[in-house]
C-alpha cells in the first residue's frame, strides 16, 4: 500500500515535470531571449565578429526566428555547439532550436526524436587537398590520412566511401573545424573532408586559398537545415514557417529594402497574407500579425541572406546552384502562404 503511494507521487511529480517543458514558445517569450545552437565558428555560417556579434548564414535563421517571436533580431543567446554536443544540447532543452549545418537524416528525424523544419542549404560531402599532392580524384586517396569532424554524418559517409571503393585510409578524428584547419595546414592530415560548403568556408579563411583544391567528387547528399525537438508542434511550426517566409519573400520579390513599403498593402494577396495586412496567419501561429515582416527585416529574404554571407561576392564564394529558387532551376521551394 505504502509503496504504491510513493510510486504514485513519483509518477505525478514527473508527469508535471514533463508538462512544464511543453510550450517552447511560451518559454522563449517569458525569457525574452531565444537560445539558438550554432556552429562553434565556421566562417560564413556562424562566427562571431571582432565585436563578439554573431553573424552568418545559419545565424540569420536564429535572428529571423527571434524577430518573428520577440520582434527583436538581437534577442538571441547563441550557444556554440560541436558536432558531438549539438544533439544533447537540443534534447536537454539547453537550446530552443539548432541552426548548425546539420544534415537531415532518417535516424535523426525518427530515432533521435528531432523535427527538421526544412532545408536552408542543399549540400554534399567533398574533399579538400593541398594542390602540391597532385591528386585529382578522391579515388586516388588510397592510404591517405583524412581529418574528419567526429560525430557527424560525414564520418559515416567517409567510412562507406572508402569501403565501397576498396581503398584504405587513416581517419584523424577532431572535434571542431578550427582544429581540423590547424592539423590540415600543418600537414598532419593529407585531406580534410566535410560538407562542400564547409570546405569552401574553411578554405576562404586560409592565408593562401589557391594552394588548396576541392576534389570533384561529392560523395553524399547533405540537406542542411534547422531543427527542433520532437513533440512541440507549435514551436516547430513557428521555426518552419519563419524559414518559409524568408524563402517566399525572395520568390515574391520582398526584400529588406522594400518590406516596410509593401507591408502597407499591395495588390498581390499572397504578399499581403505574408506581411500581415490581410488574413490572420500570424494569429494562427500565436504571433503578432507582422511576424514575417520582422523576420524579413532581420537580415533580408533568403536570397539576401545567401548573398551577404556565403554568396559569390563573399570570400566563400558559393554559387547558388541547387540552392536557387525553384523558379531558377534550384531546389529552394516553400509551400504557399495560404
Amino acid at each position, binding site marked *: 500500500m505504502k509503496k504504491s503511494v*510513493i*510510486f504514485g507521487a*513519483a*509518477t505525478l*511529480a*514527473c*508527469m508535471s*515535470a*514533463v508538462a512544464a517543458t511543453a510550450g517552447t514558445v511560451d518559454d522563449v517569450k517569458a525569457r525574452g531571449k531565444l537560445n539558438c545552437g550554432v556552429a562553434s565558428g565556421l566562417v560564413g555560417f556562424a562566427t562571431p565578429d571582432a565585436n563578439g556579434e554573431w553573424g552568418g548564414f545559419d545565424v540569420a535563421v536564429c535572428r529571423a526566428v527571434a524577430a518573428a517571436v520577440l520582434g527583436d533580431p538581437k534577442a538571441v543567446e547563441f550557444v556554440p555547439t560541436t*558536432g*558531438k554536443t549539438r*544533439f*544533447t544540447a537540443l*534534447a536537454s532543452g539547453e537550446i530552443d532550436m539548432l541552426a548548425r549545418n546539420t544534415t537531415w537524416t532518417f*535516424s*535523426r528525424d525518427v*530515432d*533521435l*526524436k528531432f523535427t527538421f523544419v526544412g532545408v536552408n542549404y542543399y549540400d554534399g560531402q567533398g574533399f579538400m587537398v593541398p594542390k*602540391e*599532392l597532385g591528386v585529382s580524384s578522391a579515388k586516388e*586517396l*588510397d*592510404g*591517405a*590520412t583524412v581529418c574528419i569532424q*567526429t*560525430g557527424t554524418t560525414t*564520418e*559515416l559517409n*567517409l*567510412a*562507406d566511401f*572508402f*569501403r565501397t571503393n576498396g581503398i584504405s*585510409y*587513416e*581517419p*584523424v*578524428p*577532431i*572535434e571542431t573545424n578550427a582544429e581540423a584547419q*590547424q*592539423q590540415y595546414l*600543418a*600537414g*598532419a*592530415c*593529407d585531406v580534410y573532408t566535410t560538407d562542400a560548403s564547409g570546405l569552401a568556408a574553411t578554405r576562404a579563411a586560409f592565408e593562401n586559398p589557391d594552394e588548396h583544391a576541392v576534389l570533384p567528387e561529392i560523395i553524399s547528399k547533405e540537406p542542411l537545415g534547422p531543427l527542433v525537438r*520532437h*513533440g512541440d508542434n507549435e514551436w516547430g511550426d513557428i521555426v518552419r514557417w519563419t524559414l518559409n517566409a524568408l524563402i517566399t519573400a525572395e520568390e515574391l520579390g520582398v526584400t529588406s529594402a522594400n518590406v516596410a513599403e509593401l507591408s502597407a498593402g499591395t495588390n498581390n494577396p499572397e504578399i499581403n497574407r505574408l506581411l500581415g495586412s490581410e488574413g490572420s496567419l500570424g494569429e494562427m501561429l500565436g504571433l503578432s500579425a507582422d511576424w514575417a515582416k520582422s523576420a524579413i527585416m532581420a537580415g533580408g529574404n533568403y536570397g539576401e541572406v545567401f548573398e551577404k554571407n556565403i554568396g559569390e561576392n563573399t570570400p566563400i564564394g558559393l554559387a547558388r546552384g541547387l540552392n536557387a529558387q525553384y523558379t531558377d532551376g534550384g531546389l529552394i521551394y516553400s509551400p504557399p502562404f495560404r
Partner: protein
Amino acid sequence: MTTLTDPPKESFRLSMLIYDTRYRSATIQVVALMGFMLLAAWLISNTLTNLETLGKPISLAFFTEPASYDINQRLLEYDSRDSHLRAAFIGLLNTLVVAVLGCITATILGVLIGVLRLSKNWLVARIMTVYVEMFRNVPVLLWIVLAMAVLIESLPSPRAFRGENPEATMSLFDTVAVTNRGVYIPEALFHNSLGNIHLFGQSSMRFDISLDLVAFLVVLIAGLFVSNKIKQRADKVQEETGERPTTWWQRLAVVFVPIVILLAILGFHLGYPELKGFNFSGGTHMRNSLIALWLALSLYTAAFIAEIVRGGILAISHGQTEAAGALGLRQGRIMSLVVLPQALRVIIPPMISNYLNLTKNSSLAIAVGYMDITGTLGGITMNQTGRELECVVLLMGVYLLISLSISFVMNWYNKRVALVER
C-alpha cells in the same frame, strides 16, 4: 525485610522510537535510509517516464548494429561494419593501453624527480621544484593539447621526406621515421610465425592472441625463473661458505640464449617503415595522439607522484640514514635498501589515488583525437545513436570497474609491503 522485586516490565510504545535513546539512533537511520531510497526511486522513475514520453525508452539494441565509423588506433582487428559493442571494446583497450603506459612512466619519472628534489645539489633540487610546481598547477587538458600542438607543428610531415633532396630524413640508420603524424618504428616479423589463437569466435569480444608473443613470454619467464634459482643457490653458498660464486654470466645465459634460439627458429626479422603513397607504411605506427596523451598524462601525474615520494622519504627518520651510513653503506644503497623500502608504506596509499586519477584523466583523450572508450562509446556511438543515457551509464560503469580493479590490486600490494605488527 525488604523484598527485591523486578522493575515493572515496560511495554513497548511507538513513541519510544523517538523518545527512548535506545531506539532513537536506529529510528533516524531507518528514516534516512527510506528517504534516500525514495529519492533514488523518484530519480530513476522520473528518468524512465521522461524517456518514455520522449519516445526513447531505455534499450541496448543499438549495440548489435554496425558502428559505421572507423577507428584509427586499434589493437585488434576492427572495421566499420563491426558492431557498436566491438567499437566500445576497441576503445576500452585503447584506454587501458594509455593508462598502463602512463602509470609506468609516471611512476619511474615521479620517483626519480621526488628523490632528486631532495638532492643536496642546489640546482638540481630547484629545477625539480620548478618542474613539480609547473605541472601541478596547470590543468592536464592544457598539457595534452600543448603536447599535441608541439608534435604537430614542430615535426616534419611525411611529405617532407619525399623527393630527391628531402627536407627531412629518417633517423637511426633509416629505421625510425619521426613525423607529425606519429613515430614509425620497425616492427617484429617472423618467417615461421606460429599464427594466432582466435578467442570467442566471431562475437564482438573476439580476441586474437599471437602465439609468437606467447612463446616469447613463456621462454622469457622460464629463463627468469631459472636465473632466480641460480641467485638463490648463490645466496645459499654465500651464507654457508662466505664466498659468493660468480654467476652473472650463467644468469644472463639462461635468460638470453633460449630467447635467441627461439627467435632464430621463428625466423625473426624487422619490418622497416618506408614511404609509400601518402604515408609511411610498414613498421609500427605510434600515433601522435597516443604519444601526446601518454606524455602529458605521465608528466602531469609524475609531478604528483614526486611529491608523494618526497613526503614518504621525509617521513623516514634521519636516524635511519645515519645508521645505514655508520654501517658503511653508500648514498645510493642507503636510498634503495633502507629509506625507500620504509617509505613505500607511506607512499603506496596516495599512489593508488594517483593511478586512478591518471586513468580517469585519460578520458580527455578526445581533445587530441585518441579513440579511447570515451571517444567511441561515449563519443561517436552516443552521438550517432542518440542513446545518451545508456552510453553514459555504461561508460560510468566501465570506469568504475577499472578504478575498483586498480584499487584492489594496489591495496593487495599495500598489504604486502605494510609493516607487520606483532
